[in-house]
């Protein structure tokens, strides 16, 4: 076991736990955001850099601070480690920079994007971004392509978190998709637009933090916050069969795996459950799905509202915003 202090809060965690996961055990505002790490996919993380934190004391044995900010998702805790996340202006400044980097080539087409309302980038930009952009040049653009008959790739929106390539590697057989080219011209692609076609490929859609991979059977059907998410299950020989049905009235508009409060899927589902059972009679409905993380999805009040909880959440937000250093005005190009 290792004792680690994050933003002044002490916790004891098993050896080999990452700083990010230690922070998640504490919960609340000290949890760094994560755009590329995915707990149920091996080797993810380290790439997006939004989870950077400052290690002010390496360990009890070697108390020297680490010279640079480190990716909390891929740095393991040591006994006696002291970490700063939201208490370090340096971390918040770097994070603001990363969010800006993630947005400069992003099309900002939320009004027509199916992911809006359940997009990690939207949430991240809301909490850490600036209101104006300093970027004046043309954004890089790609053509939209179909990868398989069920998935649309909208490369303009991709943040190159590599999660989908890990799905392809770890959950499906015969990987046919990966990353082409370098730098800001890298793109997710299949070999000559070959169809991604195997039983678990649909999970790419769920792990994608943005609207780069969307479900063609759901595209443009409905804004997610006008749907009612319901936990449901069926006996499935291929997967756990535990899903969320996104309903409008009695109609099943979309089927996805269940995501936790960090928007991560713990139990992946097969393509048959995802695409071929859009009929309420095929499922045993368990009840409304609770969507966490202050998502706009909860705004349609499909769940019974817990006023006490809502008040707490609003207070938490106000408190968090108060503690943040004011964003610097983007007056450079004014």
């Amino acid at each position, binding site marked *: 076991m290792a004792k680690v202090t994050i933003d002044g809060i002490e916790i004891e965690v098993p050896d080999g736990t990452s700083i990010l996961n230690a922070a998640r055990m504490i919960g609340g505002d000290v949890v760094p955001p994560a755009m590329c790490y995915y707990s149920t996919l091996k080797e993810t993380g380290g790439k997006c850099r939004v989870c950077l934190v400052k290690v002010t004391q390496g360990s009890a044995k070697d108390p020297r601070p680490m010279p640079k900010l480190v990716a909390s998702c891929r740095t393991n805790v040591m006994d006696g480690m002291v970490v700063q996340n939201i208490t370090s202006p340096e971390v918040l400044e770097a994070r603001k920079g990363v969010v800006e980097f993630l947005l*400069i080539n992003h099309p900002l087409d939320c009004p027509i994007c199916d992911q809006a309302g359940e997009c990690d980038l939207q949430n991240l930009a809301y909490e850490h971004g600036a209101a104006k952009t300093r970027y004046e040049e043309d954004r890089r653009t790609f053509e939209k392509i179909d990868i398989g008959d069920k998935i649309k790739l909208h490369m303009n929106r991709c943040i190159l978190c590599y999660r989908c390539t890990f799905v392809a590697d770890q959950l499906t057989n015969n990987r046919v998709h990966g990353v082409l080219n370098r*730098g800001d011209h890298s793109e997710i692609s299949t070999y000559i637009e070959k169809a991604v076609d195997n039983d678990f490929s649909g999970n790419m859609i769920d792990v994608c933090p943005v609207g780069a991979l969307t479900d063609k059977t759901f595209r443009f059907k409905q804004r997610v916050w006008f749907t009612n998410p319901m936990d449901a299950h069926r006996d499935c020989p291929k997967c756990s069969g535990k899903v969320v049905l996104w309903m409008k009235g009695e109609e099943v508009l979309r089927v996805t795996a269940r995501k936790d409060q960090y928007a991560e899927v713990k139990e992946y589902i097969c393509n048959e459950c995802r695409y071929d059972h859009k009929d309420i009679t095929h499922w045993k409905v368990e009840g409304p799905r609770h969507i966490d993380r202050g998502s706009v999805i909860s705004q349609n009040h499909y769940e019974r509202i817990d006023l006490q909880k809502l008040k707490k959440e609003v207070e938490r937000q106000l408190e968090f915003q108060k503690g943040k250093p004011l964003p610097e005005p983007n007056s450079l190009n*004014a």
Partner: protein
Amino acid sequence: MARKLLLQHENVPGINTFEVYRKNGGYASVEKALKSMTPDEVMEEVKKSGLRGRGGAGFPAGMKWSFLDRKSEKPRYLVCNADESEPGTFKDRYLMEKIPHLLIEGMITSSYSLGANTSYIYVRGEYMYVISILEKAIEEAYAAGFLGKNILGTSYSLDLYVQPGGGAYICGEETALLESLEGKRGNPRLKPPFPAIAGLYASPTVVNNVETIAAVVPIVNQGGDEYAKIGVGKSTGTKLISASGHINKPGVYEIELGLPVEEFIYSEEYCGGIWKGRKMKAVVAGGSSVPILPTDLILKTAKGEQRLMTYESLSDGGFVSGTMLGSGGFIVLDETACIVQHLHTFARFYHHESCGQCSPCREGTGWMEKVIHRIEHGHGHQGDIDLLVDVAKKIEGNTICPLGDAAAWPVASAIRHFREEFEYHIKYPEKVKNPKHFELEPFVSEKSLVTA
């Protein structure tokens, strides 16, 4: 004449063949090491020599070797980094082209010391002709019994392979190189683990630059102590410098570390002074990634001491007034050069070469290039300079591999030392429309006009 340890036979006709190389004392280090020394004794000599990595970072070679996980059951590997792609650096190519057997000899002696029975030379893909030179040399070495099973009748065996790179600068970063060597996309790995613990095929691996490995030959031949007598302080031995730019005699020079920078630039033995009788404006001393310095700061440190060609002296003053020896790519700019234009060339390179794995480097390098392009072509505006400084700051230190830093430092240092030139571009957009603007009318600092 300065002492030469690597290039002393460069002009001997036929030195690229095994026969002539051997006649000139070649492969003596292999004989000495395999027949009269234990692997650890060879490593001791390398430690004593004070040899530092010649690939850029200057990490002590002997210490790196000592980190190799010798308890592991897995095979160990020595990988030679011959991916040389840093703008301004061409010394490894010169060495491999002229005296290929020196590298092969160094590989054998070093592999013996590290206990590697399979070793690789990862050569930049664009150096196709060098690859055939090396392959021919390796064939000759096999034929002469210096490679293969039971070398020189000892129990030591070694197979040596040449691997052409895929054509990316990033594959020179040691972990990207290992990925590429394994046949994967050349993305740098997250460290730790370091290659010494889990490198090629997750086995203990040492990655060294061509020149580092070549230097092991004279070190074993004459002993580490003798080698350490050359140089100043912790900068021991000789170093290959690739000199380019506005000088009379561009080329590859072997210098003794400790040579004054001024002598290197102006003496007939080396660069032969600035061309066309012009004055010097700035120097990039160690390849495109290191901070650029104006004339006064490259010749003398901020404290007024003479600057020497050593790791320590060049970095004296840190990022404020110093630079780095880096890979030894020495680029000289004369008074007609435009710093903004020069910086744009570098920025374009880093934008093109970022692997795209981590957001600050992927997005930031492209952004910086575009802003510098805008300034250079007379479309910049007030605020662009501070914007550049801020973007560079947000990349630096926040990325997976040092390419992000390497892209940020040239920008930060160019603005630190030549801010007025950037301002000039923004103030007089008409004057910089012609790409040869400073050749037609050299830049004169307005500050100095006022004070003069």
